[in-house]
């Protein structure tokens, strides 16, 4: 849908202020950034700080922790399985390392576990590569230009973004592994945007002190993911892939170590038993829980499944009290609602503007601060731009980029977004985009150490499922980095663990029985709820009413 006449009128105000803003940018005059105190003050507008959005976890290893209601509702649900109905004596697959999830972290883990001599089975709910990694657009951070940058600066930026609460060991690992990860990806043939001499192009992201956000056009995640996927598929003998097979429970053995998982074949609806010497959880994030009703940029499968499984097995969670809302999700046209508009637009110089075409916040504050400023502008100050569906947004002035960096820059640097909006009849080289915060990233997750070990022996976790690396707020370009860094470490650690000689033992689902007893003891009303969610519910309630002989178990028939 092209812009309505009303919106076209408002765009004129943006055009009016543009020449002066371009001049200022050229002269290096920026809108005043916020001090640390101002940042803290504005965060009260951030959805994380809305107390009614949270509730206390009443069972399990992080009992007493207050996090998003939508997540707690899953933690307070029963297993999809009746443990007594499962025959663990009948094993369908045996492997050294079972990797649950086949996005950036899972695929990296698979390649490195194989390299270290392990037989790998990857189980994934949808297809290999169906993951948030695929959707990351802007870039991947790494301090690799040592004449102006180093892991020291990267470390400080990560902490500044995370409100200085990040786990120092994990951050150290992240920033020190970053150059190696970039070299690995370069060697695998990921097609990064480069200067003619091979020097990697880089931009700023929100909260970076140096330009270290490296990219592949505006589809950096897709380029990394399709490269990793292609490489995984180059090892069909050592890495087996089970698609459309969602993990529904972990299996422990009698000594308490993780020893496999129960999978659910989404097509034949049978449950499958996998016995493994080590398990890596790489199931990603949970945007599809639509916390506080927000739209999301996340993949269809981002329902936080692995987190639920590990929690039942005894792994605590941390930093889940914060959720990342990406400041710039599309809010117009309606079909594109929630869609990610990469931060790279702001990295390349695009201002954000209110209904009057005026700046109200520096465009490269850390994401939580930037989002909070948008929400305040729209809901508190009443300076949001109204959309035809009754929502509000702010302008992201993409045409400024061509004015700053030359005609054709937007088309060249943002080919994906250009074509998308072009299909809606909007030319982002000439018209600004209308944006509003959208649910983007699970900042927290499972507790791990810098070898990706959880508290359960033989159970590893990597990527968005884990918590601590990004503290309370992740910076742009550090998630693609995170998945590859910790995915690789998980692959190596799990393979090493397998080789160290794992004590075998009878398989057990006793931890599920114990968890069910705990739910009962806490008198949590269950209303037939089960978890993990596996797929979100986007069904039509009118149709459901007429499905007279259909039974739903959670969101699935």
């Amino acid at each position: 849908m092209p812009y309505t006449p009303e919106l076209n009128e408002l765009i004129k105000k943006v055009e009016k202020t543009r020449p002066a803003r371009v001049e200022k940018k050229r002269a290096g005059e920026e809108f005043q950034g916020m001090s640390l105190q101002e940042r803290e003050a504005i965060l009260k507008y951030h959805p994380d700080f809305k107390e009614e959005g949270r509730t206390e976890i009443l069972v399990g290893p992080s009992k007493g922790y207050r996090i998003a209601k939508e997540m707690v509702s899953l933690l307070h649900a029963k297993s999809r399985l009746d443990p007594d109905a499962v025959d663990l004596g009948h094993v369908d697959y045996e492997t050294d390392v079972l990797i649950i999830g086949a996005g950036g972290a899972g695929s990296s883990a698979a390649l490195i576990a194989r390299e270290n001599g392990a037989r790998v089975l990857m189980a994934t709910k949808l297809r290999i590569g169906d993951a948030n990694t695929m959707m990351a657009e802007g870039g991947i951070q790494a301090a690799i230009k040592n004449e102006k940058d180093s892991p020291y600066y990267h470390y400080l930026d990560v902490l500044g973004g995370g409100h200085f609460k990040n786990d120092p060991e994990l951050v150290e690992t992240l920033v020190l592994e970053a150059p190696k990860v970039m070299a690995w990806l370069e060697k695998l043939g990921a097609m990064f945007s480069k200067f003619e001499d091979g020097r990697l192009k880089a931009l700023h992201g929100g909260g970076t002190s140096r330009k270290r956000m490296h990219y592949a056009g505006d589809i950096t995640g897709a380029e990394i993911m399709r490269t990793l996927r292609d490489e995984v598929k180059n090892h069909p003998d050592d890495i087996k892939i089970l698609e459309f097979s969602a993990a529904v429970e972990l299996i422990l053995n009698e000594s308490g170590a993780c020893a496999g998982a129960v999978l659910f074949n989404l097509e034949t609806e049978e449950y499958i038993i996998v016995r493994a010497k080590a398990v890596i959880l790489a199931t990603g994030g949970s945007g599809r829980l639509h916390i506080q009703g927000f739209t999301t940029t996340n993949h269809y499968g981002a329902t936080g499944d692995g987190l639920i499984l590990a929690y039942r097995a005894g792994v605590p969670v941390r930093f889940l009290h914060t959720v990342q809302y990406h400041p710039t999700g599309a809010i117009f046209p309606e079909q594109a609602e929630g869609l990610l508009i990469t931060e790279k637009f702001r990295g390349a110089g695009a201002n954000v503007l209110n209904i009057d075409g005026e700046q109200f916040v520096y465009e490269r504050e850390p994401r939580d601060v930037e989002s909070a400023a948008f929400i305040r502008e729209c809901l508190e100050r009443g300076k949001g731009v109204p959309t035809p569906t009754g929502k509000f947004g702010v302008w992201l002035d993409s045409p400024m980029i061509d004015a700053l960096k030359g005609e054709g820059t937007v088309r060249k640097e943002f080919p994906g977004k250009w074509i998308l909006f072009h299909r809606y009849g909007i030319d982002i080289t000439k018209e600004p985009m209308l944006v509003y915060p959208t649910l983007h990233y699970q900042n927290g997750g499972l507790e791990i150490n810098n070898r990706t070990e959880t508290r359960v022996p033989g159970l590893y976790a990597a990527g968005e499922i884990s918590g601590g690396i990004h503290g309370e707020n992740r910076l742009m370009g550090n998630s693609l980095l995170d998945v590859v860094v910790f995915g690789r470490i998980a692959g190596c650690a799990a393979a090493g663990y397998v080789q160290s000689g794992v004590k075998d033992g009878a398989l057990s689902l006793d931890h599920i029985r114990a968890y069910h007893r705990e739910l009962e003891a806490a008198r949590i009303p269950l209303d037939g709820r089960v978890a993990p969610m596996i797929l979100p519910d986007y069904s039509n309630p009118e149709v459901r009413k007429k499905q007279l002989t259909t039974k739903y178990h959670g969101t699935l028939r």
Partner: protein
Amino acid sequence: MSKTETKPKKAAAKDKAAEERLVPIFVMGKRYEVPASLTIQKALEYAGYQLVRGCGCRGGICGACGTVYRFPNSYRIEVGLACQTVVQPDMYIAQIPFFPGNKAVYDIESLPAVGATLGALYPELFKCVGCGTCTRSCPMDIDVLGYVSKAVQADIAAVAEGSFDCVMCGLCAARCPAEEVQYNIAILARRLYARHLVPQAKHLAAAVKAVENKAFGQALGELKKMSVDELKKAYKALETEPDMAEEFWLPRDKSYLGE
């Protein structure tokens, strides 16, 4: 702050559906009436489908939801990604969520970075009849025949650049009379190009070496020991590279750039 999006939004969505114009679409030949503003993907859900296959990122990049459709009285097969294409009245829709594609297995490191490698691993390349159905079948508007021709001419760089926007949905392969799997040829070319033909980043190799030589051990050790207040102080003192700085901008303070 007091305003939650949840409930008003859901209610609004329902009202909207009620007042919105419904249009007929035909899912695999079967008629449903759906709101005219929905994408094919949301229309399927509205009609009652629970999507398992044929649904991925819902944002036009993962290639899970390749869809073909046509209109009555038209011979043309049209294509689109279900998550990106808005329904139109009387569309006949079929998703092609999976198409078996031939994928060569190779070691990218040792492959000769010459154009002939493409044809050696995918000999069917030379069966291309140049009909252009692939280009017409591409929901990303890629000139598929253009890059396939470049592959036949052994021009790896042109294949890599020309196929960069590919989401690997498989519609080109599904419709190719020569049974090519264009997207797998393309990714092979991109990987060969990026690995062997584009110069490797020298600064990257140097940065890896610096890490391996523990050039930042002391600096990071200092940071890890700092209290939050000290960290905040160091953070505030950071010198920020200006937005419009040239590539070879240098900071004033060089004390933490490696030992």
